[in-house]
């Protein structure tokens, strides 16, 4: 660790914090249906879309109607993406002649992008045509991100409204988010990325003759347009196999910095949207403070562990930290920071190979996802995940003092707590259940590339990443098999929709309640005490649920590695 490393981390935090208020202001206007600086250009497009689609922009939906609309939209999107992948060999824009994607891989990839997971069992440059990358993946990157934000806004409306039957219109939220927030930012962002050296072309791969006379085929493509939304929408599915470690997908230290900031930008700003819409920005800052506490602790552990390096390699006389799987232009600190950010948010892009991280350095990304990616989180998904934990924390606080718990003037009652617990419990069920299954079945045990506890970590990471809709991987796992394609896809779908539907149910039941005025007995939810309680509940729930699995993987590996033990056979 050195001073420059901490300065890079501090600069990152400062830039994200500086963006919270302006982006929060802008997004609040977008979702309140007010005029924005972009309205003169975009309002006619928006109006036209509604007319063709037969949408009345003033007609709002109940939580159930909102949820059904969302599910119908996803079902159609899933079918479209599956069809594009299966038919890419006969569709245009396939200069490299990529074959049709196999059924199980297409199913996995479609589930992966529709749920904003973007798990990469596909190989990017070696599997997909340009059309699949654009029409298939880029468009789902937009729509799954817009859906996440729309759902968070619906849940916020549940808190901000009183005695209301509806939580907004899914169609309007989806359209406005795509048109006013995602598209304009991505257009400018993509051009910036090209200025840093990211390709944006429809030409076939380039054949080069190297200085030593060897042939090198260099994969290119329409990379920048996809990477912009991949980061901003916390999707994370790469154009290339190596994702943001690939020099074309992350050419410079500056492109890297902006990419990390863009992972957090919208998610962090949504806490401010929350504060503004419930009429008290301090409530949003309190949530962000709880997120920030967990985040900084994670960054410190991963940075320290990667900078110290692997005991086994240090034993051979190496110094300078763990550079296996990392790029020189980023070095230790920018790789460690990226890893913590991408798993805190549900992004899943990687600029270094997490599989080669030190045991403790890799434990933090795993833990971030197990806690449900509530530290800023996926766009939208992080906020509604965090608000689900808020419901539980408020409930625990209420139990301690023997009062009916309240949050923002809303009584938290049995129905909300039941729904919150349903959302919280479905994640460990998929993560740990899937891991358990894979460790007893031959098809599951065939997956890991590393022996010993690290092999277990590879399996655990895969199911954790899938259910948390993250999409990053301990990439050594051979995941492109019928067993993993299928089971991981189920994990992704359950992890997405079994959180979304209970969160929407909470929104509906809260919106219908009266707002009670604060009294002397009300627990102030913008205080340090509340932030501490929230962090405590998250760590206790996460710790009790996941510590045994972490003990079997990264913790054992750390202890064994410190003693100089290695696993598997050399070479």
């Amino acid at each position, binding site marked *: 660790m050195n001073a*420059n490393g901490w300065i890079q981390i501090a*600069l990152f935090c400062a830039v994200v914090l500086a963006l919270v208020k302006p982006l929060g202001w802008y997004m609040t206007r977008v979702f309140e249906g007010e005029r924005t600086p972009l309205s003169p250009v975009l309002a006619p497009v928006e109006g036209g*879309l509604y007319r*063709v689609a037969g949408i009345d922009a003033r007609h709002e939906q109940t939580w159930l109607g909102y949820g*059904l*609309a969302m599910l119908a*939209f996803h079902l159609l999107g899933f079918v479209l993406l599956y069809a594009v992948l299966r038919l890419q060999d006969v569709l245009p824009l396939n200069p490299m002649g990529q074959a049709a994607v196999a059924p199980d891989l297409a199913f996995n990839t479609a589930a992966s992008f529709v749920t904003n997971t973007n798990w990469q069992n596909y190989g*990017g*440059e070696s599997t997909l045509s340009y059309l699949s990358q654009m*029409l298939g993946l*880029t468009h789902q990157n*937009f*729509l799954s991100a817009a859906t996440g934000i729309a759902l968070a806004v619906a849940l916020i409306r549940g808190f901000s409204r009183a005695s209301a039957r509806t939580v907004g219109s899914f*169609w309007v939220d989806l359209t406005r988010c*795509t048109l006013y927030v995602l598209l304009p930012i*991505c257009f400018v962002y993509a*051009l910036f990325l*090209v*200025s840093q050296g990211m390709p*944006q*072309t*429809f030409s076939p791969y*380039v*054949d*080069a*003759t190297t200085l030593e006379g*060897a042939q090198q085929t*260099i*994969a290119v493509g*329409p990379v*920048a*347009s996809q990477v912009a939304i991949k980061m901003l929408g916390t999707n994370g599915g790469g154009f*290339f196999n*190596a994702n943001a*470690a690939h020099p*074309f997908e992350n050419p410079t230290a500056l492109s*890297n910095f902006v990419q990390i900031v863009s992972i957090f930008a919208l998610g962090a700003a949504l806490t401010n949207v929350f504060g503004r819409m419930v009429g008290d920005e301090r409530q949003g800052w309190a949530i962000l403070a709880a997120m920030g506490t967990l985040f900084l602790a994670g960054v410190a552990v991963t940075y320290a562990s990667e900078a110290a*390096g692997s005991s*086994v*390699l240090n034993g*051979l006389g*190496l110094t300078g930290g763990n*550079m*296996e*799987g*990392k*790029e*020189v232009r980023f*070095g230790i600190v*920018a790789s460690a920071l990226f890893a913590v950010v991408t798993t805190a948010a549900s992004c899943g892009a*990687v*600029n270094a190979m997490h*599989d*080669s991280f030190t045991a403790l350095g890799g434990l933090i990304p795993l833990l971030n996802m197990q806690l449900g990616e509530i530290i800023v989180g996926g766009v939208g998904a992080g906020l509604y995940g965090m608000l689900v934990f808020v419901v539980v924390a408020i409930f625990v606080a209420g139990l301690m003092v023997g009062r009916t718990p309240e949050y923002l003037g809303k009584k938290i009652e049995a129905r909300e707590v039941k729904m919150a617990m349903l959302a919280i419990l479905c994640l460990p069920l998929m993560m740990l259940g899937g891991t358990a299954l894979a460790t007893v079945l031959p098809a599951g045990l065939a997956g890991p590339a*590393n022996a010993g506890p*690290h092999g277990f970590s590879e399996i655990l990471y895969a199911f954790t990443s899938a259910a948390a809709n993250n999409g990053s991987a301990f990439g*050594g796992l051979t995941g492109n098999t019928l067993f993993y394609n299928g089971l991981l896809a189920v994990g992704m779908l359950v992890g997405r929709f079994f959180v979304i539907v209970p969160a929407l149910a909470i929104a509906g039941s809260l919106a219908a309640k009266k707002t009670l005025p604060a009294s002397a007995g009300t627990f102030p939810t913008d205080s340090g005490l509340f932030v501490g309680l929230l962090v405590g509940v998250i760590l206790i729930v996460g710790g009790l649920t996941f510590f045994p699995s972490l003990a079997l993987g990264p913790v054992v590996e750390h202890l064994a590695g410190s003693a100089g033990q290695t*696993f*598997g056979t*050399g070479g």
Partner: protein
Amino acid sequence: MRPAMLNQLRPALVLLVALTALTGLAYPLAVTGVAGTVFPAKAAGSLIERDGRVVGSSLIGQGFTGAGYFHGRPSATTAADPADASKTVPAPYNAANSMGSNLGPTSAALAERVKGDLDALRAESPGQPVPVDLVTTSGSGLDPDVSPEAAFFQVPRVARARKLSEEQVNELVAAQVQGRTLGLLGEPRVNVLALNLALDDLAKR
């Protein structure tokens, strides 16, 4: 319930088609158009030509093996085995199939590979500490850079093979060192392909 679902079907279909066309076609095409006009060389992949032939991309590493060139980092990329398409064989710096080694910190295979590389480099420059990036594979397998220490480490070998003085080669390396962006971001580095091109130019003079 049936009319409710049917009511959702039209907006779902229309929005899916319209937003797909907008985000999946119009947006990437617009970015391609503008990028191709404003940053044509970068949009095409930062390709380097010498005597009318593409010799590589300034952003993509190449597998240098000769003693007279600076070497990049070890690369873990693979290619399909020509003898059996279901298997893969090592193919360093395969720019059509990026990947890392994915070997974990307690992997015996990793420890053995690093030890082999270390022994070879220590034999080449006895007594010099070996920079860590010269014996570890990058995340992409296509890392175009090495650390300045790793470039300077190779100066004696390159100077011997090229019959140049170490001072000359040292100067060449020093001129190719790029600092942190804005003095803050990332790490100092040397682009290996650019360095080797400069080395070839020096030899021609």
